[in-house]
């Protein structure tokens, strides 16, 4: 009994400790970000590995998500004789929800896990402590560029996802299902608001990019420096990122679209 309480306490303290360490780590990263603008080439390198390499996955997934949305939406809308609203359905669901959320989840799987594994391996092969020995701050040199690259690329990826998804939805809706193309676009333009829908979607994706990159970098930096520890950290990155994205999505949605 006492042992159970003791292990519960240890677990709780462990969680609190990690939480605190994670936030201190974030502060350290953020203090390293302003110095990056004088050495932007570091960020460009990371934008390539974080953003560009994820773009293809996002492109293909966005296309198929849009196409499926169009097919599914059509089946429901046609019962009400409202198949002209297909454009609205596709654009609103992509711009408000699926764009940021699905690309965030894919981003966590594609870029987040890679970041964790990279940093974790750097730690276990003592590259990070080697840098410290040479008086190079690994947070500024290694972590901060990756963080900024993640925060920059996530909204771009989400925008690509939404845009490609809408095009995919249009291809299926117009080409396959025969929805009038004028009605598709014009209804979409009437019902989709730039500030309420598009900008709020962009805000969501920035938040998700921030959180996912933060989690990924922290898990890598905090990983037990063994091959098993790096593996576990990578798994944790994906799991925690998914929780964080879906939980935050609810909170943000409630804040943005709750009052109407």
């Amino acid at each position, binding site marked *: 009994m006492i042992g159970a309480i003791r292990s519960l306490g240890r677990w709780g303290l462990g969680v609190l400790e990690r939480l605190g360490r994670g936030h201190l780590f974030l502060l350290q990263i953020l203090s390293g970000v302003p110095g990056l603008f004088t050495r932007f*080439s570091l960020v*460009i*390198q990371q*934008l*390539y590995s974080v*953003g*560009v390499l994820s*773009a293809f996955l996002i492109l293909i997934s966005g296309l198929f998500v849009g196409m499926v949305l169009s097919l599914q939406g059509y089946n429901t809308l046609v019962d009400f004789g*409202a198949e002209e609203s297909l454009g609205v359905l596709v*654009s609103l669901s992509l*711009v408000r929800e699926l764009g940021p959320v699905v690309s965030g989840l894919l981003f966590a799987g594609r870029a987040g896990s890679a970041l964790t594994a990279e940093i974790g391996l750097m730690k276990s092969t003592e590259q990070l402590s080697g840098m410290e020995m040479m008086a190079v701050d690994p947070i500024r040199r290694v972590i901060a560029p990756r963080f900024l690259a993640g925060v920059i*690329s996530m*909204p*771009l*990826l989400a*925008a*690509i996802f*939404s*845009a*490609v998804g*809408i095009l995919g939805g249009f291809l299926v809706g117009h080409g396959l299902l025969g929805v009038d193309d004028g009605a598709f*676009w014009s209804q*979409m*333009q*009437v019902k*989709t*608001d*730039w500030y309420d*829908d*598009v900008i709020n979607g*962009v805000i969501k994706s920035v938040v998700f990019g921030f959180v996912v990159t933060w989690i990924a970098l922290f898990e890598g930096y905090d990983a037990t420096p063994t091959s098993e520890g790096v593996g576990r950290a990578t798994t944790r990155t994906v799991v925690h990122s998914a929780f964080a994205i879906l939980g935050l999505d609810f909170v943000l949605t409630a804040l943005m679209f709750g009052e109407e």
Partner: protein
Amino acid sequence: MQNKSTEITVGMFVAAGIAALFMLAMKVSNLAEFTDETGYQVIAEFENIGGLKVRSPVTMAGVRVGRVADISLSSENYTAQVTINLYGKFDKIPTDTSASIYTAGLLGEQYISFEAGAEEEFLQNGDVIDLTQPALVLEQVIGQFLFSKAEGE
């Protein structure tokens, strides 16, 4: 040290992202509409606006001429005061134009429809439209129908 092709692909990626945002702005959302908003505002008072909302369309002969900018309740006579933003290019709307609230389709969204009058003067910024027809509330109509049916028997 910096690889040239890395820079180019990153540039392409950022450009693609911005192009996607641009498409979302111009093609998907209604941002393009705001660019020619050198419009003017008129006020219409309705007995009942039904499901009319801010940003609902305002049409004339089916052509959209503006949007609902604001809805408030007049505390004097308990009518709904609807402020309408009319686009600048539609500046020849007669002052005795009447405004009615209709529903697009059977269950669709509600919108304001203008019917032009015969007056030679045109609506200016801040003018009030006097001739209005309230929204048709489906429950009320059904209620009246049932009532008249019961009376007839």
